């Protein structure tokens, strides 16, 4: 194919090529524009926004929307809780998933099929929201960040992909370790884990992003303000925008305003993901690739 591709590159661009570039560029613009628009509004003063709701740059640059959010403190609390949940959750979930995936990658042991089906069944059938909620209640995890930490990171789907990754280790390496007298645990720690660095990095990042974005159970289970997660805080800020409207009347329209505060909150929630994105991108193709097609 490389040869054909080279040849075709020498050809001049056809109408077909131009059409494809136009379509793909339009899609890219449609994805980028809403983000850019949000950034601009978050940096705008109330007065300027009222006069120019659509602008390609902040007409009157201000950081007041951000300042207002930080002064109010909710965002800080959300940040603290979410960072804790993300760290603790990622460590614990990755430990459970990687250990299980490695176990399932072993050739045969009594009960392997049974345990595997036990795990896989959860992908297709669940008790539903109410029974799960009552289980949290039984465990005393209502209004506890530990509910989110323990529950929302482990996924059967990821375990299957990790398992497929472990299965790709050349068997000779294990044989050699076995001859040296290593047991399954030693092989896991000394042979498999170091070899699967990229795969582990991928899923660590995915899991962390999952925790960062978790909203559903956080909102159901956590009801005290001091334990709220960032996404719940953001949702609250977006929802109470009507109440925020009166903020905007002060100081001759130079103050923070509802839409600006909303977009500033969105930006603050997004920033860590944006910082992580280059790393995510480096790995995600690999993560999607490794065995996800052959279950």
């Amino acid at each position: 194919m490389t040869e054909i591709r080279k040849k075709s590159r020498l050809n001049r661009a056809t109408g077909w090529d131009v059409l494809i570039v136009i379509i793909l560029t339009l899609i890219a613009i449609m994805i980028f524009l809403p983000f850019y628009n949000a950034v601009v509004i978050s940096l705008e003063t109330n007065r300027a926004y009222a006069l120019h709701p659509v602008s390609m740059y902040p007409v009157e640059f201000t950081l007041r929307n951000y300042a207002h959010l930080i002064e109010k403190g909710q965002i800080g609390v959300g940040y603290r809780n979410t960072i804790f949940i993300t760290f603790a959750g990622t460590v614990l979930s990755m430990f459970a998933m990687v250990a299980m995936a490695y176990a399932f990658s072993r050739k045969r042991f009594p009960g392997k099929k049974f345990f595997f089906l036990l795990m896989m069944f959860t992908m297709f059938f669940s008790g539903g929201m109410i029974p799960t909620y009552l289980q949290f209640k039984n465990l005393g995890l209502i209004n506890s960040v530990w509910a989110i930490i323990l529950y929302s990171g482990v996924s059967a789907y990821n375990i299957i992909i990790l398992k497929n990754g472990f299965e790709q280790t050349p068997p000779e390496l294990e044989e050699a370790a076995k001859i040296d007298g290593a047991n399954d645990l030693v092989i896991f720690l000394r042979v498999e884990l170091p070899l699967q660095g990229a795969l582990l990095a991928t899923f660590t990042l995915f899991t962390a992003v999952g925790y960062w974005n978790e909203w559903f159970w956080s909102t159901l289970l956590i009801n005290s303000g001091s334990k709220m997660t960032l996404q719940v805080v953001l949702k609250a800020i977006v929802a109470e925008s009507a109440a925020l409207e009166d903020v905007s009347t002060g100081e001759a329209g130079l103050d923070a305003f509802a839409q600006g505060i909303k977009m500033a909150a969105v930006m603050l929630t997004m920033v860590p993901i944006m910082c992580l994105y280059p790393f995510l991108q480096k790995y995600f193709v690999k993560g999607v690739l490794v065995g996800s097609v052959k279950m």
Partner: protein
Amino acid sequence: MRTRLNRLGRNIWQARYIYMLLIPGLLFFIIFHYVPMNGVVLAFKKFNARLGIWGSPSVGWANFERIFRTPDALTAIKNTFEINLSRLVFQFPAAIILALLLNEMRGTRTKRIYQTIYTFPHFLSWVVVSSILSNFLASGGLINSVIVSLGGTRVNFLADTALFRPLLYLTHNWKEMGWDSIIYMAAIAGIDPTLYEAATVDGAGRMQQVFHVTLPSILSTIVILFILQVGRIMNAGFEQIFYMQNPAVMKVSDVLDTYIYSITFKATPNYGFSAAVGLFKSAINLVMLLVANFAVKKASGSGLFA
């Protein structure tokens, strides 16, 4: 018999470290998935918090019969089916088309830059995405300002019953299309190059190569993802709908997930009824998955559970 038992015992002992590694994961699935699964008996009970799940009186199929006598529940069931079938039509092919287009684009570097943009929204939560997009689509937002400057009248996108569903598919594609296309891009990268050479020799143009080489080669990937999608037919994408929903569009947007949520967390919840709706949903999902898998297996010889 005894030797077989001995052998089993020895095999178990040999695998002792493997079991050790299984324990954390198994505990998780048992505590957070299998114990709640027992809770589905709630669907057959009139729940009384004082008596607990098991102590509550049994009511047989009454909760399920009530689903079919409750207009709101029936609307939710109808909406769930309609929205998800439309998702199969308007969302599922989008990622495939995007992958094919990207594959036809020249220049690895540009391709990567475009992919960077397409994939980014996948990593954001629906709270973030819906805030950004509703700002964009608001009556004072960018889209409407463009419409007005072109001489049109403002459109209240998010409160229009006719526009709500198309917007669901559009915004979902906006967020997930790039990510979903990666798996197809990977499958395309794995196609044997000699196939294209042969096609070129046979005089196939680029368009023909797409339809006669690329598409058939990634068919098995498409089939697997299609089965999985059908297995989620009753999950209409709770978070997306929940954030975009508003009273004006309730009639076309209330799906089973949002319905369960709203009846469970209102003033006088009926846990038994909520659980029955939930179980009804899970059961249909499971049946649909098995049916889709069976149909595909019959047609092509390979399904999800090979």
